[in-house]
């Protein structure tokens, strides 16, 4: 029977062995694969719901296995935590070992230098004692750490290699901590803002808001901005016709409620940084404006509705809900920035810019279901208790009189909207620092060669002594022969070769 502590020690030795580290590295790579195959909640929540709706059985099963949030799953966390425990257990002892090594001397010369890979030998009549001293001095001048023995000189270089290796592994630990801390003390959110409208940094104004575990919403900085104009340009003609070529959002920012507004342009690779929060432009779309009157002629809706793009040509769909009309009215349909002349494949846009805009809407009457208490999407009409009363194509400025005097819908125009992602991540700077340290350490660790070279002088019965220089590469970097030759040259200059015939 193993005692408990013996068992723990065994476990620890296993965990910090290179074999297990290797195994865990593989496991980590393997565990990441499903995260790229299945849609992930973190990046595409709508696709996850769609997947589960389309494959109810397997979808729920996969969900239970965390296949839709692989990188937040307990088993993924288990692997990387084990890996990092293993890493810490591996490198902390090495740190002490390195400390001892730094203060120790190069090892004594091995018995048989000729068995080393690179080896050079000659005879010289120079005094062995002087040659040992002077060679050691000259080698040390070239940056080698030397030790002089009774009949040999040991030299070693490349201690920075191990330093680099330790720096790299510790930087990885630091990186993990920075990533973790940053996400717990930060937040992410998204919001869609229409041209002419604004956003104030307040939880209620976000479309989605994900605070870190340790983030308190009271910390939200009180800045605000409004979208003055959104601009997009697309390629016309050619193989990539319709591909976006440029877009930017012109906003007016107030860093605090009392600050003066400042005009700023937000572009894809140029976010707005304000009050510790970064605001990114992540998407855009169209927002048709409607005026809806009910059967009594009252205006029950007058606003720009946000329609969401469905394809690369911005065929966009959306809804209008007018709960105050009697009976309740709803519209749903498409905004088509450049309408196709051929509706046989359904209403669609053939170019992303608003060159020939049109809406194609169906009108519904009945109960919008807003009072049922079940939360509804603002982008979908629940038509279970409604009746369709008509369908119509409208160009800007056109009016649609609903049948039987049930109201009037006017398509008055459209504007654009921009989607912004807002993020605050206090660990970002630290993560960058550790990443840079990691690269520096890695480069040192992989490119600095660790080598040992020895000189041994053996007295020979006849004239002169036998000089031998041999070298050993502790790593697989090239260049050992060159180093040995260089050091041998230095020794040769002190103890010139005699040729005996």
């Amino acid at each position, binding site marked *: 029977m193993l005692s408990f502590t013996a068992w723990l020690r065994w476990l620890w030795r296993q965990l910090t062995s290179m074999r297990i580290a290797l195994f865990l590295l593989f496991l980590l790579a393997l565990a990441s694969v499903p995260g790229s195959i299945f849609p992930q909640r973190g990046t595409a929540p709508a696709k996850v719901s769609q997947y589960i709706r389309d494959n109810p059985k397997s979808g729920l099963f996969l969900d239970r296995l965390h296949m839709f949030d692989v990188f937040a799953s307990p088993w993924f966390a288990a692997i990387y935590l084990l890996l990092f425990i293993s890493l810490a257990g591996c490198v902390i002892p090495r740190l002490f070992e390195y400390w001892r090594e730094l203060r120790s001397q190069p090892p004594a010369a091995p018995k048989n230098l000729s068995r080393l890979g690179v080896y050079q030998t000659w005879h010289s009549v120079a005094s062995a004692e002087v040659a040992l001293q002077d060679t050691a001095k000259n080698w040390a001048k070239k940056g080698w750490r030397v030790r002089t023995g009774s009949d040999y000189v040991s030299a070693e270089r490349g201690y920075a290699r191990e330093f680099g290796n330790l720096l790299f592994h510790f930087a990885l630990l630091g990186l993990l901590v920075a990533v973790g801390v940053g996400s717990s003390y930060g937040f992410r959110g998204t919001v869609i803002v229409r041209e002419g409208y604004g956003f104030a940094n307040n939880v209620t104004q976000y479309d989605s808001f994900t605070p870190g575990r340790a983030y308190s919403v009271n910390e939200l900085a009180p800045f605000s901005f409004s979208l003055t104009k959104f601009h997009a340009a697309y*390629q016309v003609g050619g193989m990539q016709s319709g591909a976006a070529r440029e877009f930017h959002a012109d906003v007016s920012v107030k860093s605090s409620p009392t600050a003066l507004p400042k005009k700023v342009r937000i572009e894809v690779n140029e976010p707005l940084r304000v009050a510790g929060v970064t605001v990114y432009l992540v998407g855009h779309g169209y927002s048709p404006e409607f005026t809806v009157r009910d059967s009594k002629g009252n205006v029950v809706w007058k606003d720009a509705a946000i329609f969401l793009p469905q394809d690369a040509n911005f065929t966009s769909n959306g809804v209008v809900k007018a709960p105050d009309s009697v009976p309740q009215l709803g519209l749903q349909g498409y905004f088509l920035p450049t309408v196709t002349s051929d509706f046989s494949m359904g209403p669609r846009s053939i170019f992303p810019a608003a060159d020939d805009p049109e809406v194609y809407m169906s009108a519904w009457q009945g109960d919008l279901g807003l009072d049922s208490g079940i939360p509804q999407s603002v982008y979908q009409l629940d038509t279970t208790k409604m009746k369709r009363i008509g369908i119509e194509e409208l160009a800007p400025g056109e009016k649609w009189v609903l049948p039987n005097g049930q109201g009037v819908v006017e398509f008055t125009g459209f504007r654009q909207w921009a989607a912004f992602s807002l993020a605050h*991540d206090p660990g970002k700077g630290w993560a960058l620092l550790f990443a840079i340290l990691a690269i520096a350490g890695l480069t040192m660790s992989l490119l600095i060669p660790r080598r040992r070279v020895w000189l041994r002088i053996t007295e020979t019965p006849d004239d002169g002594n036998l000089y031998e220089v041999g070298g050993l590469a502790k*790593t697989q970097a090239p260049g050992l022969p060159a180093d040995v030759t260089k050091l041998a040259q230095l020794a040769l200059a002190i103890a010139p070769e005699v040729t005996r015939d």
Partner: protein
Amino acid sequence: MINESLAHTSNILVYAAMTGFVVAMVAFAISLSKSRRIESLEDSVARTNSISPAARLGGTATLEQATVSTAVTDGDERGAGRRAGNIGMSLTWLSTLLLGASILCRGISAHRLPWGNMYEFSLAAGFAISISYCVLSVKRDLRWLGLFIVVPVLLDLGIATTVLYTDSEDLVPALHSYWLAIHVTAATVCVGAFSVGAALSALYLVAERAESRILAGLEVGRTGALANRLPSADRLDLMAYRIHAFMFPLWTFAVISGAIWAEAAWGRYWGWDPKETWAFITWVIYAAYLHARVTVGWRGRKAAYIALAGISAILVNYFVVNILIPGLHSYSGVK
């Protein structure tokens, strides 16, 4: 505005480079078929085996001695094999330069760095592979490797010009960033060099198999025919290791610069987008390769398989993720 005539010149230059690579491929194949090791496989296995185990554990040190006599020769100065090898080498240089010129014209035609879609990435990757090989061949005789470089380059260019072709156009906004130059260039250089490393690891597997069959007293058969035209397994392993080790820091840099760019473009430095996920997987596999090389029981054949897994992950990231999996990195330009 796009300069159409330069864009056209660029396309013609690609075909010229491909023609050159095809002839180089034939020349390298002839050269390989005529070449032999200076010391036969059997002799060198016997000799290496006679070096004491202690000395063998010295690793590199022993290798420096062992490699001298395992060099490959393709016959005397005027032999057909040598001539073919030289033709292959010269044509590889020429085609590489033509490919480089094509990429340059493409860039000038659109007034931007010519890496904005998969066609352009593929040209750049082909160039990176062949230039890595050319540069490595300056200091050492690598004619025996030529065939195994030129064939993948031709495959890459073939796919580029047929499936992935896109006209020279402006960039999508997501790529308007100087990080395009930094991140994509670093990644492309790595892909080129890792491909050469993978070719060496694959050849190592061939040579290792032949050598271990000889040691076991078995017939070497067809692998022996190829292995007899290659340097020793140890030598191949060492070359592969050096390339991978040299490139790993750059790959790390490529991943991190991608993260910095992602921070500027999308608001988070890491979001497990499919492209990011596979870049990470690739990184972990190569880290595992480096660890395997220092783990008893894993160096040698298993390490070589890990290197091949690394290049496979790169290929998955390039072809499968770009084309099949939708993500933020959707700028393949392929419809």
